[in-house]
């Protein structure tokens, strides 16, 4: 009796905790509400499965607990029951996987009109790069990094000259426009994570990774590093300011380009 009651309490307590506790998603600020939707579908299906299994166990313990004279049934298997249960499970799994894969299809398909920005991670700070009037990001490599060229832009690539560099400062982006984040690390693995955007991706040294999102809410959001990167990992923070297009333009005007900020950028300019 007490064992069955505790199991019932565990099942119902878990459900109550889920419903009543104050801890839940932080309000979303990007287009990825589909991700939240898939999570909620998953919570429903898994929640029902968990409660059903635990309550059934509690029932069995209550009903079939040992008493003098009781003898268990002898029932090696029931193919029918096993196949039914397997089929129901497969349906439940498909109900989670199908929307999941559909949303993943969107996640990996960057809209053609998306603008680009680059986030560069190093122990333990964030820097950013935006295309200039030319609209393209120049090539880069960790080999090019020096005091004058902190993000390692290729001095020989003319596309890099007008790129806007934001070293260890806040990034601004316009609201409502899809952006493709290109991610690059000059030392260890980092991860670009803004909880309000839901999306995240590693910065893998040696390659450029990416993901896309559309900021939907004006405000300042904190960028965390979600990939362990050494002792300074918790201090690796940055800010991303989402603002109306006009404010963004005004901010962009005030930023320095590679050519303006670095003799290397000028050298390539002169060429």
């Amino acid at each position, binding site marked *: 009796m007490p064992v069955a009651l505790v199991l019932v309490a565990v099942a119902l307590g878990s459900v109550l905790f889920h419903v009543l*506790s104050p801890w839940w998603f932080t309000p979303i600020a990007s287009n990825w509400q589909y991700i939240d939707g898939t*999570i909620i579908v998953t919570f429903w299906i898994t929640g029902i499965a968990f409660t059903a299994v635990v309550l059934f166990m509690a029932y*069995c313990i209550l009903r079939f607990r040992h008493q003098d004279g009781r003898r268990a049934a002898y029932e090696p*298997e029931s193919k029918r029951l096993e196949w039914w249960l397997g089929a129901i499970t497969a349906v439940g799994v498909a109900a989670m996987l199908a929307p999941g894969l559909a949303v*993943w299809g969107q*996640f990996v398909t960057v809209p053609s009109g998306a603008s680009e920005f680059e986030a560069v991670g190093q122990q333990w700070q964030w820097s950013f790069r935006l295309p200039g009037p030319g609209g393209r990001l120049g090539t880069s490599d960790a080999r090019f990094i020096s005091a004058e060229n902190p993000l390692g832009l290729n001095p020989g690539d003319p596309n890099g000259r007008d790129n806007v560099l934001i070293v260890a400062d806040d990034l601004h982006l316009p609201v409502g426009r899809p952006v493709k984040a290109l991610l690059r690390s000059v030392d260890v693995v980092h991860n670009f994570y803004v*909880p309000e955007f839901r999306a995240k991706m590693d910065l893998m040294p040696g390659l450029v990774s990416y993901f896309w999102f559309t900021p939907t809410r004006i405000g300042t959001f904190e960028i965390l590093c979600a990939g362990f990167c*050494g*002792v300074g990992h918790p201090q690796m923070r940055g800010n991303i300011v989402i603002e109306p297009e006009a404010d963004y333009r005004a901010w962009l005007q005030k930023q320095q380009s590679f050519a303006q900020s670095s003799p290397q950028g000028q050298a390539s300019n002169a060429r």
Partner: protein
Amino acid sequence: MADASVGGMDAAPIGGAHDAELYHPRSWVTKYVFSQDAKVIAIQYSVTALTIGLVALVLSWLMRLQLAFPGCFDFITAESYYQYITMHGMSMVVYVLTALFLGGFGNYLIPLMVGARDMVFPYANMLSYWIYLLAVIVLAATFFVPGGPTGAGWTLYPPQAIMSGTPGRDWGIVLMLVSLMLFIAGFTMGGLNYVVTVLQGRARGMTLMRLPLTVWGILTATVMALLAFPALFVGAVMMLFDRLLGTSFFMPAIVEAGTHLRHGGGSPILWQHLFWFFGHPEVYIVALPAFGIVSDLISTHARKNIFGYRMMVWAIVVIGALSFAVWGHHMYVSGMNPTFGFFFATTTLIIAVPTAIKVYNWVLTLWRGDIHLTVPMLFALGFIVTFVNGGLTGLFLGNVVVDVPLSGTMFVVAHFHMVMGVAPILVVFGGIYHWYPKVTGRMTNDVLGKLHFWVTFLGAYAIFFPMHYLGLMGVPRRYYELGEMAFVPPSAATLNVFITVAALVVGVAQLVFVFNLVWSLFRGTPAGGNPWRATTLEWQTPQTPPAHGNWGGSLPVVYRWAYDYSVPGADQDFLPQNQPPAARTVPA
């Protein structure tokens, strides 16, 4: 309902191993220290693993103290915090759980359950333990070398693991990799033994489909480990070369604090593939023996045959095979080609089906049973609850797009602790309470056992269930201190204090377990040969504890499957596997 195709109840015993010449110990040292008896080796493995487990428990206390009361403990620096999490994780996954299930339970139970006198290669089996012990000593030594143990996280991701921004870069990481290589070498010796013994050492009549599920779980896990560990081994060799010889297997061009390192052209993501090609099967290397053991505990203590034995065997084999095709779900946000996500999400969620069937069959074994709520049974029930909970949150993380917001957060920590921490450890405890009478000849104390169960089960659930919600909120893992985060409400700090208090209580409860084991060794009620009235062969030995050679004069002959509980018409509610079907051949 005696389905001959399930149990092969009436089949005449055929085949089986011939009696073998045994190595006989000549002195106290060869009997109890450098022993070649699998049962002694099992105890050596178990005691060593449980000892490291206690160290790992203390490390978890230290990190929980830091998370609940940041800044209150001067000796917990960021460096030492990361060293604690790394050593806790690696110790628990490899040196405690793998060693306990395969080296401990595997060694003790395989020869006894299949009706063999010992493992087939006793000398290699002995070496396996001593190399394991050496690996443990090397691991422990990292606490005492300059710079201390590595703080790279248990996944040891390069480049960070061998760069100076990570603690233990000088000695810790080198010794960690050497220790892992030793562990794998030692495990291989034991692992080959387990596989060959199950396949070649079975008693007459012990067909594969009459094996207890414990043996099926351990066998499959061992085959998997023999295939998976080599990936970790070559990864460790490459990283050692990168660290010591300056090669660049995992190191692209890197600028560290303004200085160009002498590396270039390597791929850090290659390590992640190698690591998780090992790492994901490793989850099932721990889980499958637990699946097997818990099946036997439930069947024995519910006095009912395990429901759907053949499906249970196939589920174990299918899960083992599929688990080699899902490793990419640890790398959804690693920057690998994102189209891999479609494949790995599908394979990962498919595993849920055979796993769910196992869960159904456990609870259907309870249904219409004769449930004895003994201490091993309580732990088995606790396992089902925590495993179902942790398995279901795996459906979140396996479903690629749902993993995107949750990866790298406390949700992941909560998930894997519930599913491969708490759940298998509850089976370890259940298994120890269940077989302790066979190992020592004495029962453990029931009251202490129940106290241990309730505090551990409810406490561990209270630790890890709420932790999911921290991750859902977005709290990242591997943060020495959260500091100010706009999206984290102050109530999260309260929750962290609650979790830490629960962790301290659960930790203290393990002293009750240790005390029970030691006290019962001297004061426990004598158990007799088969206190649980179980069917499997280990309970039918002529002596308890079983003597060297296990079976006295002649090997057992097996006539039936492992689950003849409550057979209609039988005098008692269990028929041992070696009991001939005499009653059935006598004409009425």
